[in-house]
């Protein structure tokens, strides 16, 4: 079997969902068209409904018609099918040390036992990450796992959490947070709690807290504010960072790949051979964006906004000054 298989086709998934609904009550052509439109690709509704209604002898013959209502030819709901590849993939993740963040010991044992005869799809030893920090989170620490699970529960149950956090300097902060998501960074191999601090029932700025620095966490009985997601969206910086990119040293490919994490808009200027890119970001990610842009060297130039540009220019000016001082010292020696 190939990876790219019709077994996983979106069309089969849609048909499966239609069959499940059609077992509850017979469907009209319009009902079927509605499900296809909701679950399909943009153009799926052009062709699939006609095939399901067996129009023009080109149908799939999965639904039978009686008085313009459709019912399945099957005897029961379509079962969930797990391919060998999928079982092997599950086996690979069950062996991953991060799996214990999600499952307790007995669940881990159950999966190990049920998948005992299955070969993992890949062996993690055959993979290496480079340019990765060397202080990833300690996933095997029971306290870390407990904190992870409590935060996950807070998000799933839509509750406020009380967090005690220890900063890099050893200062402790206890505060209420509306947990938004658990953010994972592959580069740092760390989880961060992405959430909004709540004081006296009002939302106060976005935080990203390293899970490894959270000392305690408790789920409260209050619900998260309903407008949490839209509040966070509003915190996006009003002006994008604008940069000009040259294709020197394969700059386009390098920069576009690395910045594919960010929402961005780009335009190529045929006259100058340069690309203009607007990068949208949140204030909490500003420092990281700044040093990422510095890492590209003279292949990019920051155009604006002024407040961001000033920070970058300040760094470059300071560097120029340091090199000048070093040159002068060498000259005087």
């Amino acid at each position, binding site marked *: *079997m190939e990876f790219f298989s019709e077994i996983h086709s979106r069309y089969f998934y849609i048909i499966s969902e239609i069959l499940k609904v059609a077992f509850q009550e017979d469907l009209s052509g319009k009902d079927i068209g509605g499900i296809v439109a909701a679950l399909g690709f943009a153009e799926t509704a052009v062709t699939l409904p006609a095939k399901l209604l067996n129009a023009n002898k080109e149908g799939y013959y999965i639904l039978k018609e009686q008085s313009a209502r459709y019912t399945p030819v*099957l005897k029961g709901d379509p079962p969930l099918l797990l391919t060998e590849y999928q079982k092997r993939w599950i086996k690979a993740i069950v062996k991953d040390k*991060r799996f214990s963040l*999600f499952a307790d010991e007995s669940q881990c044992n159950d999966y190990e036992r049920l998948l005992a005869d299955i070969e993992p799809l890949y062996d993690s030893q055959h993979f290496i990450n480079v340019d990765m920090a060397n202080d990833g989170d300690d996933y095997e620490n029971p306290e870390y796992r407990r904190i992870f699970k409590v935060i996950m529960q807070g998000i799933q149950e839509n509750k406020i959490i009380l967090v005690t956090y220890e900063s890099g300097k050893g200062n402790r902060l206890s505060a209420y947070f509306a947990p938004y998501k*658990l953010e994972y*960074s592959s580069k740092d191999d760390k989880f961060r709690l992405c959430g909004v601090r709540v004081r006296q029932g009002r939302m106060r700025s976005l935080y990203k807290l390293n899970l490894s620095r959270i000392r305690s966490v408790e789920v409260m009985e209050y619900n998260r504010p309903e407008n949490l997601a839209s509040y966070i969206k509003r915190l996006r910086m009003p002006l994008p960072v604008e940069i000009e990119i040259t294709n020197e040293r394969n700059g386009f490919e390098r920069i576009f790949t690395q910045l594919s994490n960010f929402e961005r808009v780009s335009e190529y200027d045929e006259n100058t051979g340069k690309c203009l890119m607007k990068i949208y970001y949140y204030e909490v990610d500003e420092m990281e964006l700044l040093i990422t842009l510095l890492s590209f060297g003279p292949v990019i130039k920051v155009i604006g906004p002024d407040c961001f540009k000033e920070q970058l220019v300040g760094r470059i*000016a300071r560097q120029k000054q340091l090199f000048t001082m070093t040159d002068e010292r060498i000259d005087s020696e």
Partner: protein
Amino acid sequence: MAGFTELIKNFDKIRDYTREFFVYGYKCRNDYTRKSGRSYDNERRRIESYLAGYIKWETNSRGKNLFISTDTSDLSENPLFSMWEAKSFTKNDCLLHFCLPDILKKNPGLTAKDVTSILSEEYLSCFNDYEMLDVMTVRNKLNEYTMAGLFSTQKNGKTLHYSMNETLFDQVTPDAVNSLLLAVQFFENVVPAGVLGYFIRRDKGKREDVFSFRHIFMSHTLDDEVVITIAQAIAGKKTIRFENYSLRSKAPSVETVLPLKIVTNVKHGRRFLITYNLRQRRLFSYRLDYMKNLTVVEESSMHDTKLTDLTEKLPFSWGVAFGKKAQLEQVEVMLHIDELTEEYVLKRVKREGKNGSVEKVGKHTFLYRIEVFDTMEMVPWLRTFIGRIISIKGSNKTVIQRFIDDSKRMASFYEM
């Protein structure tokens, strides 16, 4: 655009276009020169269809440029997984996909002939215009699904009897299923072949929104089939052959190599295969996204020796460059860091500086030293300390001088 179909037979057809839309986002129709304009129009229309909601476009003097713009920290699942859901199929494929499990679930242990009769009598007899299927067609699909792991067979004399395989989810508690599905949402975005996990969650109807991701490169999913084939070749200590479509050469080259490790640069987003190149007799790395038509060739007796060689060299490689230990390059960077107010910078040097050493040599002054195969590979990281570098020295004078010249050029951009 007569004859346009939304689904496709071959994944490679859209692999390159999707990457270009996703990664670059500024190219117009005329920039795609490898294939015809007609081909571009069809692929663009398909990708627009698969990624509706994520695709944006702008019109400028050069024409319409299509791009996929996403902030990965806002997404819980990879929109590019949709590309793997676009495989075309025949009407018989569809009929059998749904009817065979339905028949075998109620009647385990049937032969292909039995299945064909039940299909005709109980499923298709209600249609006047359906052409009945022959046993061979049914048997082929039964065998295909057995190979895919969905069915199992038992031989009775010369005849195969088919049954549905029990699903993993029927054998564990609902809590254990929920734990697994939550784990799947995380892992599908961070481990190879994550799309397989996405299919599980999709089919179970689980769309929870607990995780978000920084520093993940969604276009990696486009190379998943290549990655898994290579991982299996490494496990089997086998050589592979592939066509390498490097940007540097006009025509693809055919390479036969012994694969050793798959490398992801988690900062830059590039992925490589480190190999022992049989022709050049040395370690060599290739970009995964440049590989096409990959096949596994044969077992190699050299695997263990070459892997040991690589393992000894890995600590001295910043990325994917390897050489002889006698050719290691020395780098020394003096940094200005106020350890009281800027301890986080010192920590960053230690956490990201690999096996380099950090030593305090004066007030707010730290010396970072390292030996690497290729100084050039660490230049982007060194640049992140711009504004703090008191001096930089190294045995590769060309790269060090270029670093200094680049800093001056950067200053000149802002009229300093």
